[in-house]
C-alpha cells in the first residue's frame, strides 16, 4: 500500500497498525485536529495509525467502532496530519488508504455483507460522495458492495 509524495510523484510504502499507548503523547490536537487522547482508554474503539514503512511519524489516524451484529464498521473520526491537509500537503492518499484498510477489515469479517459507515457533517456529505463514492443512507454515508470493492481495488487490496 502506498501514498504519493506530491513533490516527486514517488510512491511511498505505508504501514497501518494499531496506535500504542505511547503514541498518544504525540497525537496533539494541534497536529491531528482532534483530542485523540479521549480514545486512549476507551475499549469501545480501535484506533489505527498510518506511517511510512520504517518510520514512526504518524501521517494519519482513524478511530473505529465495530458493530459485529450489524456486520459493519463505523468510522468515528479520521485525520490526516496538518502538513498533509490542503493545497500544500506533502502526501496524497492518506485518508483514502485508511478508509480502504477499514473496507478490508470489514470484508475479512463479514464477506459480501460488509459495510463501512460514517456520520459526516452535513455540509461535507457531497464531498465524501464525490471523493470516495460513498452511498447515502439517511444522514449517514456508507461503502458497500461494488463501491466497497472499487475502494479495495483503488488502494491495492484486490
Amino acid at each position: 500500500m502506498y501514498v504519493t509524495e506530491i513533490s516527486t510523484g514517488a510512491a511511498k510504502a505505508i504501514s497501518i497498525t494499531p496506535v500504542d499507548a505511547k503514541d498518544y503523547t504525540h497525537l496533539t490536537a494541534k497536529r491531528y485536529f482532534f483530542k485523540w487522547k479521549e480514545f486512549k482508554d476507551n475499549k469501545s474503539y480501535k484506533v489505527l495509525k498510518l506511517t511510512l514503512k520504517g518510520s514512526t511519524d504518524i501521517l494519519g489516524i482513524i478511530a473505529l467502532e465495530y458493530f459485529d451484529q450489524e456486520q459493519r464498521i463505523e468510522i468515528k473520526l479520521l485525520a490526516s496530519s496538518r502538513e498533509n491537509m490542503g493545497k500544500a500537503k506533502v502526501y496524497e492518499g492518506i485518508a483514502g488508504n485508511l478508509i480502504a484498510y477499514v473496507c478490508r477489515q470489514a470484508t475479512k469479517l463479514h464477506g459480501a455483507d460488509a459495510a463501512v459507515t460514517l456520520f459526516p457533517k452535513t455540509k461535507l456529505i457531497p464531498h465524501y460522495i464525490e471523493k470516495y463514492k460513498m452511498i447515502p443512507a439517511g444522514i449517514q454515508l456508507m461503502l458497500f458492495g461494488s463501491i466497497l470493492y472499487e475502494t479495495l481495488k483503488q488502494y491495492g487490496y484486490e
Partner: protein
Amino acid sequence: MNRKGTQRPQKKYSRAEVAEGLIKPLRLSDKKMKEANAEMLKVLKNHRENLSSGERLKGQLLQLKFQIEDYLREESFDSERRLGYFLKAYIQSLNIKNIELARQIDIKASELSQYINDYRKPPENIFIRLEIHSHKIIPARDWYSLVLKEKLHTLNVNPSRWKAERKHVIEASLK
C-alpha cells in the same frame, strides 16, 4: 468527543479539502442518533437484499483472500489452517460440491479430495488453475505459500529428522 481543544480546520481549508483529509462526526442527540441508525440499517438491508449473485460471490472470495493473507502474515503455523482448510472454505464460498470444482479445474474428484484432506500437496499448476478459477482474486502465490508455510514448519519442528540427519554431517570448523 469534547470539542474543547480541537482545531477548526474549515477556517483554513475549503470543504473539499477538509473532506479529503478528515472525517468529523456529526453531533446528534441520542434519540436522533438512534433514528439515523435505524434509517441507515434499513437502507443497508435493502442493499444487501439486492446484491447480485456475482457481487455476493466476489465479497465471499475477498473475505477468504484476506483471511489467507493475514494467516500467512502470522509467524506461527496452525495445524488447523493448512491448505485443505482454505480449499474447503473456497468450495463453501462458491456454494458448489467438491466434484464440481474438480470438473471446473480439470482434475479428478479423488485428487481434489486428497488436497482437501491434506493427504497430498498439489503441483504448482493446480495453484495457477485455482487463481484463474477465482478470477484472480486469490493468487496462486497465496495458495502456494500455504504449502510453503507448512513445509517450513515441518522442517523446523521435527527433532527425530534432525537427529537422523546429524549422523550424516561433519560440522564445519569454526576455529
